[in-house]
C-alpha cells in the first residue's frame, strides 16, 4: 500500500461540499529519466484557501507545484485545475494534448512566483509588471503602466519602478515578481519557495505581502520552509515525502500532533533550527 493513501481522507475536508475545488489532484504521477518524482499525489485546494506545502528537498513538492500550471507534464493520474484537466482537452471521446497556445491561455489565470525571482533582466520593475498585460492580455501600454504602478505601490515599491532587477535587493525583486503575477488578475497563485533564496532579514517583507494577499481571499498554494508562516496564515498544511502526500491537515493541529513518524522527524529537524521564528 502506498504510504499516502490512508491520510488522503482528510483531503476532502478541505473542500466545501458543492464548491468545485480550484485544484484537484488524484494519483498524480510524474518522472523523468527513469526516476519517479511523483508517486501518486492526492491533493485539493478550495477557492480562497491558503494551502501550504512542506517537505524535505527532493520530496517532489516543487515538481507538483510546477505540474499545476503545466510547467512539468503529468504522466499519470488526474490533475484538474480551474475546471480543466491540465494538458489535455476532452473532445470526441479522447483527450487531446494541448498545443503551446492552449497551455499559454491556461496559464494566464495562474500566477507563479519562483524561488529565484526570475524577473526579466532587461526590463525595469515597471516593465516587468506591465509585460504580461501588454504582451499576453493585449492591454494598451499606457493603461498597463498605470495598473503596473498600482501593483508596485501595493507591494511598496512604487519608488523603485524604474530600477532594473539587478539594482534591487532580493526581497524587493521577489515583491516585484509577486506584483508581476498579480497584474494578470490570476484566479490562483503558486509560490515556489518564495523566501528560500533570500537573506534572512529580507524574508519578512515578502511574507508580509503574501499575508496581505491571503487576507484578501486569494487562493494560494505555497511551497515553503517557513513553518511559522504556514501556522499563522495557512488554512491547510500538506507534508510531502518521497513523491507522495504523507499527511494533510489544519496547520496548528498537524504541527502540534503529526500522525506520522516521517512528519515528526522532518518537523523536529526544521523547528529545531527555527525556534525563534515559531
Amino acid at each position, binding site marked *: 500500500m502506498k504510504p499516502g493513501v490512508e491520510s488522503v481522507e482528510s483531503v476532502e475536508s478541505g473542500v466545501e461540499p458543492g464548491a468545485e475545488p480550484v485544484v484537484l489532484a488524484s494519483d498524480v504521477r510524474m518522472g523523468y529519466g527513469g526516476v519517479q518524482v511523483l508517486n501518486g499525489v492526492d491533493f485539493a485546494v478550495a477557492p480562497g484557501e491558503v494551502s501550504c506545502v512542506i517537505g524535505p528537498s527532493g520530496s517532489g513538492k516543487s515538481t507538483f507545484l510546477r505540474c499545476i*500550471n503545466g510547467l512539468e507534464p503529468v504522466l499519470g493520474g488526474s490533475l484538474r485545475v480551474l475546471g480543466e484537466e491540465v494538458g489535455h482537452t476532452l473532445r470526441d471521446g479522447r483527450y487531446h494534448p494541448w498545443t503551446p497556445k492552449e497551455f*499559454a491561455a491556461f496559464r494566464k489565470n*495562474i500566477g507563479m512566483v519562483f524561488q*529565484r525571482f*526570475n524577473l526579466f533582466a*532587461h526590463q525595469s520593475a515597471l516593465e516587468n509588471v506591465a509585460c504580461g498585460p501588454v504582451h499576453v492580455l493585449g492591454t494598451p501600454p499606457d493603461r498597463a503602466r498605470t495598473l503596473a504602478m498600482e501593483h508596485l505601490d501595493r507591494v511598496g515599491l512604487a519608488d523603485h519602478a524604474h530600477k532594473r532587477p*539587478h539594482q534591487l535587493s532580493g526581497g524587493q525583486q521577489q515583491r516585484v515578481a509577486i506584483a508581476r503575477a498579480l497584474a494578470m488578475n490570476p484566479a490562483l497563485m503558486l509560490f515556489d519557495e518564495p523566501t528560500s533564496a533570500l537573506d534572512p532579514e529580507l524574508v519578512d517583507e515578502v511574507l508580509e505581502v503574501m499575508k496581505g494577499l491571503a487576507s484578501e481571499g486569494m487562493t494560494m498554494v505555497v511551497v515553503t520552509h517557513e513553518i511559522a508562516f504556514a501556522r499563522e496564515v495557512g488554512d491547510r498544511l500538506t507534508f510531502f515525502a518521497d513523491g507522495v502526500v504523507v499527511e494533510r491537515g489544519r496547520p496548528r493541529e498537524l504541527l502540534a500532533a503529526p500522525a506520522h513518524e516521517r512528519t515528526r522527524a522532518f518537523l523536529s529537524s526544521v523547528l529545531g533550527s527555527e525556534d525563534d521564528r515559531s
Partner: protein
Amino acid sequence: MRTEPIAGPSGAPVPVARTWHWGRWLAAAVALAVAGWLVYLVVVNPHLDWGKVAEYLFNDRILSGVWVTIEISVLATALGLVLGVLVAVMRLAHNPVLSGLATFYIWFFRGTPVLVQLIFWYNLAFLFPELVLKIPFTMIGLKWDTNQVMTGFTSAMLGLGLNLAAYFAETVRAGIQAVDRGQTEAAYALGMTPAKRMRVIVLPQALRIIIPPTGNEFISMLKTTSLVYVVAGHDLMTNASQIYKANNRIMELLIVASVWYMVMTAVATFLQGRLERRFGSDAVRLVRGGGMAARVLPKVAA
C-alpha cells in the same frame, strides 16, 4: 611607487631611494633595436619605390576598390547576420528536420574553404545557365542569365554572407542558450507562447551577448574580402593586383592596399568599441548564473 619620506629610527624623515628597473630598460632597448632594424631594412630598401606608394595611395582605381570592399563587407555582413539568426533559431527548434538541416548548413559552410565557395558561386552558370523564378506549372515568372547575375560582386556577397551566417549562427545559439532558463519559465508562467517568449524575453537579452562579437566579424570580413580578387570583384585587392600585374610594382601596391585595410580596420575598431560600450557592459550581469556566462562568453568572443 612611494616618494614620501619615511620616519626613520631617530624620528627624522628619511628619503626613499629610487628603484632602477635595469631588466626593463634592457628588454625595451633590445626590442626597440630589433624593431627599428626591421623597419630600417624596409624603409631604405633600394628596391622599394616610396614615390610609387604615394602615387598610388589615392589612385582612382584604388579608391573605388576601397569603396567596393566596404560595400561587399557591409552587405555580406548584413546577409550573414540575418541568415545566421534564422539558422540559429532553426538549430534550436524542436523539429528534428529543421534542426538537422541547420546543423548540416553550419557543417557545410564551416567545413569548406571560403575560397572554394567564392569560386563556386562565381561559376554557378556551369550548373544552372539560367536562373528561373516562376509559379510551378505555369509560364508566369522571371528568368535571368546566370552569368549576368553572378558577377564578381554578387558572388562575393553571397559566398562571404552565407559563410558568415554559418559562423554567426553558432554565436547566436550560444547567446540564446546563455539566457537563464528561469526567464523562459517566467515567460511561460505569464501565459506567453514559445514564439512570444523568444521575441519579447529571450532574444532581447541574447542580443546583448550577440552584438559585441559582430564587431569582430565585421573587421575580419573587411580583410576576408581580399579573397574576392580570385573572382575579380573590383574590390581593393582586385584593383591593386590588376595594377601591379601591369606595372610589376608588386610590393608598392601591396603596401598601398595594406595601408587602406589598416585604415578601414582602425575605423571599424573605433566603432566596435562604441558598440561594445553600448551593449557589452550589461551582458555579463544580465546573464544570471555566473557559471553559464563564464563558459559561454569567452567562446563567443573568440
